[in-house]
């Protein structure tokens, strides 16, 4: 009964989403206030019913209802309850439901926080989001119904969740990532609404900006968690593989980065307006493309599970409609007059433009590398794979190119600035960073390392600009109260994000350059030295978990006779699927990680062992956290709050649903 109720709830949500897509938009055409006023209520209605469907599916999972196909394929009675719950989105059908749930959550948030916006704008934005919801609910209902039953051949027990996914990282990684993916539909909807209404002004940018920042912040956090999960769960100790599915989430992030910066220029100075609209369209289109790549199974990847061509076709058509439709609208409606605001070559506008160009080009080269094998295959020109060397060769120089400008950006002035002033501000600290880079790069294990020198130089340079700006703001304020007021949330957010970026770059380069790794055979009593640490294999043992049996190897790590850590890597065999899983043991700290993973047993009492010494690998994730939280902090800024509180709410709540 429960799955059927869930199915009905999903259908009701679909009908409400159709209403949301049509009625308020029709209201804006006919100037029908009642129709436009229905938008928030309809959005809330969709959320309630999708939420209901989601809760009912979760119930089926928790109750081990193996007559539901998704539950039977992805859960097992021995699975710990928290993983039964997260198994819901560890598969295609369920994760699609999560997608729609998060989309409707965003719709409700927009309806709630945009009460002060003009009614027509709210109606258009929610209608556009309603259209997206219609597309995805149709996708769910027509091609991937999560409530499909296995009757009468109900299995006695489920197939179990893929052991790779039985991990706390998976409980939060997909929801956060989807918050970002789907959140990009908000700036998209604002852009389309602005095009529909023919209103592309600074207030439009101001409305759309906090949403973009939040979505982009969540996307950063989601990608960071994915990287961290891959690092400790896959057992290779890698943190980024340029896997097509990683790229699928990375491309909207790159485009979102350009969007976040171009919105700043549009809001403050009214420049790049049509470009910003285009970026918003592309960022969301890349989200959809990512969904297509992940969900159609066209790729060889960690994330590509069972493939279904019908599903791929559906998303491809949907993608074509969204991209084609929005670009057509763009071509028809974008104001043909160029913006009349002028700026010189030496100004903050130009620096933001450089950011935009570099990040757009970076998106294009990643897109090219990701789609190249697909395109070649589609035209039967051979089966290619494009690996990390391509992406590193193309992507790294582009990031190095943008970093020198990142320092000047926050210090620069709008409209007109002078290179002389920049030189004056940055010359002395710049030389300091250069010296620091040369010294630090010589400290490595094998002499001077040019790449580390460059990384320290560029990251130090970025950090420097940010700190200098911070200092200037605080020092020039006459009293303490003003000091605090000058540190607005949007300024703090920017500072955090830029520092975070510098930390990511530094961590990435150092761990790539100074990483030490050894694969070897170790028997009980064997000792191995790596990175100045002494690894001793003390004993082998076995340990039973709730749904697996693990072979364990107990290691003791010492340095100069002092015990640093006891590490116990495992090799697990899961009962339900018989699948083998490596569970790496990691001793983490700010400056280095020690990483041990087991391979397979070799003879008696010995294992193939992978030992790794990874300096500064944590900086990657700490930096990404700073980027993500920095973006989230910006929405606390007063100027976003005042605009929404200007008017009391016209109509919200469930009451509107009945009328």
């Amino acid at each position, binding site marked *: 009964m429960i799955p059927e109720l869930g199915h009905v709830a999903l259908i009701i949500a679909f009908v409400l989403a159709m209403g949301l897509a049509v009625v308020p938009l029709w209201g804006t055409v006919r100037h029908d206030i009642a129709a436009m006023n229905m938008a928030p209520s309809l959005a809330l209605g969709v959320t309630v019913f999708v939420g209901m469907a989601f809760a009912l599916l979760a119930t089926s999972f928790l109750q081990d209802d193996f007559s539901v196909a998704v539950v039977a394929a992805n859960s097992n009675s021995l699975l710990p309850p928290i993983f039964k719950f997260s198994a819901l989105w560890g598969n295609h059908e369920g994760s699609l439901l999560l997608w729609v749930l998060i989309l409707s959550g965003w719709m409700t948030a927009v309806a709630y926080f945009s009460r002060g916006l003009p009614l027509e704008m709210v109606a258009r934005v929610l209608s556009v989001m309603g259209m997206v919801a219609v597309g995805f609910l149709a996708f769910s209902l027509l091609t991937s119904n999560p409530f499909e039953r296995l009757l009468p051949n109900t299995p006695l027990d489920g197939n179990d969740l893929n052991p790779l996914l039985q991990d706390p990282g998976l409980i939060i990684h997909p929801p956060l990532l989807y918050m970002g993916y789907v959140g990009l539909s908000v700036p998209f909807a604002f852009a389309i609404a602005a095009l529909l209404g023919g209103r592309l002004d600074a207030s439009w940018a101001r409305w759309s900006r906090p949403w973009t920042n939040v979505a982009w912040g969540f996307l950063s956090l989601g990608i960071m968690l994915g990287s961290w999960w891959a690092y400790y769960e896959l057992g290779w100790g890698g943190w980024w593989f340029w896997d097509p599915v990683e790229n699928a989430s990375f491309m909207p992030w790159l485009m979102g980065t350009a969007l976040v910066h171009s919105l700043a220029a549009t809001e403050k100075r009214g420049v790049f307006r049509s470009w910003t609209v285009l970026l918003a369209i592309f960022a969301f289109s890349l989200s959809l493309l990512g969904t297509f790549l992940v969900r159609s199974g066209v790729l060889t990847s960690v994330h590509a599970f069972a493939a279904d061509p019908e599903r791929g076709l559906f998303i491809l058509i949907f993608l074509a409609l969204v991209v084609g439709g929005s670009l057509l609208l763009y071509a028809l409606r974008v104001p043909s007059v160029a913006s009349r605001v002028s*700026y010189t070559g030496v100004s903050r506008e130009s620096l933001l433009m450089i950011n935009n*160009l*570099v990040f757009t080009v970076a998106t294009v080269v990643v897109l090219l590398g990701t789609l190249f094998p697909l395109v070649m295959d589609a035209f039967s020109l051979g089966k290619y794979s494009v690996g990390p060397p391509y992406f590193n060769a193309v992507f790294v120089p582009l990031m190095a190119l943008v970093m020198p400008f990142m320092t000047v950006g926050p210090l620069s002035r709008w409209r007109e600035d002078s290179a002389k002033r920049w030189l004056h501000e940055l010359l002395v600290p710049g030389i300091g960073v250069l010296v620091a880079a040369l010294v630090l790069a010589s400290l490595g294990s094998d002499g001077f390392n040019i790449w580390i020198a460059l990384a320290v130089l560029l990251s130090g340079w970025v950090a420097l600009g940010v700190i200098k700006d911070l200092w200037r703001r605080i020092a020039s304020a006459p009293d303490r109260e003003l000091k605090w007021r000058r540190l607005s949330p949007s300024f703090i957010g920017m500072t955090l994000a830029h520092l975070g970026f510098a930390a990511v770059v530094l961590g990435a380069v150092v761990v790539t350059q100074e990483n030490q790794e050894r694969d070897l055979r170790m028997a009980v009593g064997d000792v191995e030295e790596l990175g100045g640490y002494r690894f001793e294999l003390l004993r082998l043992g076995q340990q039973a978990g709730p749904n697996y049996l693990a072979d364990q190897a107990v290691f003791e790590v010492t340095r100069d006779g002092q015990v640093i850590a006891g590490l116990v890597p495992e090799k697990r065999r899961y009962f339900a699927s018989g699948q083998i899983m490596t569970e790496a043991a990691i001793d983490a700290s700010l400056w280095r990680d020690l990483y041990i993973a087991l391979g397979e047993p070799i003879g008696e009492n010995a294992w193939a062992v992978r030992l790794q010494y990874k300096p500064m690998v944590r900086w990657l994730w700490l930096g990404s956290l700073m980027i993500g939280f920095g973006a989230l902090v910006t929405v606390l800024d007063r100027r976003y709050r005042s605009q929404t509180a200007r008017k009391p709410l016209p109509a919200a709540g469930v009451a509107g649903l009945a009328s």
Partner: protein
Amino acid sequence: MHPIRKQRLILVSLMVVLSSVAIGLVAFALRDNINLFYPPADVMAGKAPTDRTIRLGGMVVKGSIERSETELDTTFWVTDYEASVAVRYSGILPDLFAEGEGVVAEGMLDASGTLVATQVLAKHDENYMPPEVAAALEGKTAPAEGTALP
């Protein structure tokens, strides 16, 4: 010059510079960083190059995995049921690497026709088959248990 025209000039020249940089980088990176995929039949027919990295995909032949007792060296045979190629790999193999399962190995062919692999990829869950391997095996059926493989 008119400020707006100057603005456009800056924009256009920046775009030209950046796109040429990007095109240059892409061309440089694509030159030797893409790998072609070959099924074992093509390798045995001599269609695969020996001077660059290739990808080989198929099924691991049952009973062909030989592990060294003292080192991390492993050799195994990969087949598409038409031909088989030997693969040598030193290092830790993925968890789902097993006899009779799909695999993709990346590396260079040596003089004896053995693929010296630098990376071995196995599937990530029980039901998933890498698309290249699926395509390589298309239309070919596994022989019954016990039959000798070509």
